[in-house]
């Protein structure tokens, strides 16, 4: 029996007062407004430039144009524009030069390009500020709701991996112990959610096997999974709103970004960030391996392993490779999200890398050993708990699961 949760519970409101967060949000909004004004100005320049380009293009079409020449503020008199192919161009800094129309157009186009790049960077800045603002806003509202942040030092649990059933028992007891403030009624929900997640992963993996080792092919399955995870998270969130539990000795994590990140960064970021975090993956992977030698675990991951025979036995080599790349990808995704402000989705994604490869690593043993089918939903829940405990050493971020503790 493990001692019940050892950690600190801090109400979010004590870390950031609601008022402060609101102030910060409004400050950022102000900044956004400023940037918008700036961008409008630039956009105006661009429009003017376009008009000018059109005009200068048309000028040399004729030898002369009849125009009304402004004379003073009020008067105009008819005049004639000659030398239609000569422009005096201001280069800036009071330097002028004589140019032909064509050269002028070229010059104006170059200027347009610089303007566009400026607008582009400004847009990026605005986007940045917007995410910041929404982050502050959610912080404020969540502080107002009275969320608490619960932190626990992560303790390496070696014995857990040795005997899974025991550990799963421990886990469950742990859960009931630590979760006193959460209430027990969520267990069923969690079990349901986990089984749903597993289903999704199975589907996805099968799809992945069809897709061969082309990593890019996986984009859509990931999205599907992620989206469904979002839904699930929403579900959990609804029930956990009374107090969400944070986990990890990892850097300060605030439960706040959840809402904001779920929409903005969660879908895009993992893929974008994939290449740059490769190094980290390597750190993650070796740690994940120790668990593959746990035979007992098979009993628990039965539901996961049993679908494999259906899948692709002959291709177990490629399948493993698949799992490897897949896990790479997932791990990177998880880490990158964790690196960003997005804290809540990270763990979710990370959990899958470990869950998925395991059945495949064990798959050879699985066919010789005893496969126990645990169709029962409660079984799945223990399975997931075990997995969470088993997978913890390999990744520091399983906050999603930690929410259960």
């Amino acid at each position: 029996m493990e001692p019940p949760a050892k950690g600190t519970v801090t109400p979010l409101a004590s870390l950031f007062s609601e008022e402060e967060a609101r102030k910060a949000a409004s400050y950022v909004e102000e900044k956004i407004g400023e940037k918008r004004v700036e961008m409008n100005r630039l956009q105006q320049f661009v429009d003017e430039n376009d008009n000018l380009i059109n005009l200068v293009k048309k000028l040399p079409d004729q030898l002369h144009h009849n125009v009304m020449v402004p004379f003073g503020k009020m008067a105009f008199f008819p005049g004639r524009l000659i030398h239609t192919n000569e422009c005096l161009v201001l280069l800036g800094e009071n330097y002028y030069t004589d140019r032909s129309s064509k050269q002028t157009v070229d010059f104006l186009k170059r200027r347009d390009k610089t303007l566009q790049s400026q607008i582009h960077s400004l847009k990026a800045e605005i986007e940045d500020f917007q995410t910041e603002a929404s982050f502050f806003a959610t912080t404020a509202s969540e502080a107002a709701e009275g969320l608490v942040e619960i932190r626990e030092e992560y303790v390496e649990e070696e014995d857990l991996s040795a005997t899974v059933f025991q550990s799963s028992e421990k886990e469950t007891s742990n859960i009931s112990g630590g979760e006193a403030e959460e209430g027990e009624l969520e267990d069923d929900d969690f079990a349901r959610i986990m089984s749903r997640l597993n289903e999704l992963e199975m589907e996805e993996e099968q799809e992945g096997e069809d897709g061969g080792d082309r990593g890019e092919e996986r984009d859509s399955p990931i999205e599907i999974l992620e989206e469904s995870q979002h839904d699930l998270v929403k579900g959990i969130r609804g029930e956990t709103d009374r107090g969400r539990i944070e986990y990890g000795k990892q850097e300060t994590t605030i439960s706040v970004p959840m809402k904001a990140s779920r929409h903005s960064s969660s879908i895009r970021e993992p893929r974008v960030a994939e290449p740059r975090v490769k190094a980290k993956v390597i750190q993650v992977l070796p740690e994940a391996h120790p668990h593959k030698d746990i035979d007992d675990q098979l009993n628990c991951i039965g539901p996961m392993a049993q679908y494999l025979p259906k899948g692709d036995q002959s291709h177990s080599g490629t399948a493993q490779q698949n799992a490897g790349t897949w896990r790479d990808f997932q791990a990177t995704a998880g880490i990158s999200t964790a690196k960003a402000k997005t804290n809540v989705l990270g763990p979710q994604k990370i959990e899958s890398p470990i869950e998925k490869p395991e059945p495949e690593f064990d798959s050879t043993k699985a066919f010789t050993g005893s496969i126990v089918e645990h169709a029962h939903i409660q079984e799945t829940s223990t399975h997931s708990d075990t997995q969470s405990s088993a997978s913890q050493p390999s990744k520091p971020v399983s906050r999603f699961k930690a929410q259960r503790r």
Partner: protein
Amino acid sequence: MSSSTAVRDLQKDLENKANDLGKIQKDIGKNHQLRKKYTIQLGENELVLKELDLLEEDANVYKLIGPVLVKQDLAEANANVRKRIEYISAELKRLDAILQDMEEKQNNKRETIMKLQQRLQSIQAGKAKA
């Protein structure tokens, strides 16, 4: 009685320090504005330089001096702009150094003010108890 005079001294000290801090912050703000101006100028000059480089040898270049356009040699204009860019970058560097210095000062001031406040509070708390 002595404690009350000490408190008064401390408060005066604190006020002075706060004023100093405000001054430094103002300076930093000014510095930022100046920097912004120079950065914009630098960008403009670089654009001009790029355009001048694209001009052909015999192109007419003028400089607007007051109300008149004065014809200038292309090479001369080019050299002038280059020199300006050099000057502006040097100025930016100088401003950076000043800014860093001022920020350091600001932090120091802030720390001393914090300490003063703490002392003041502890003295007041002691008085309240007594």
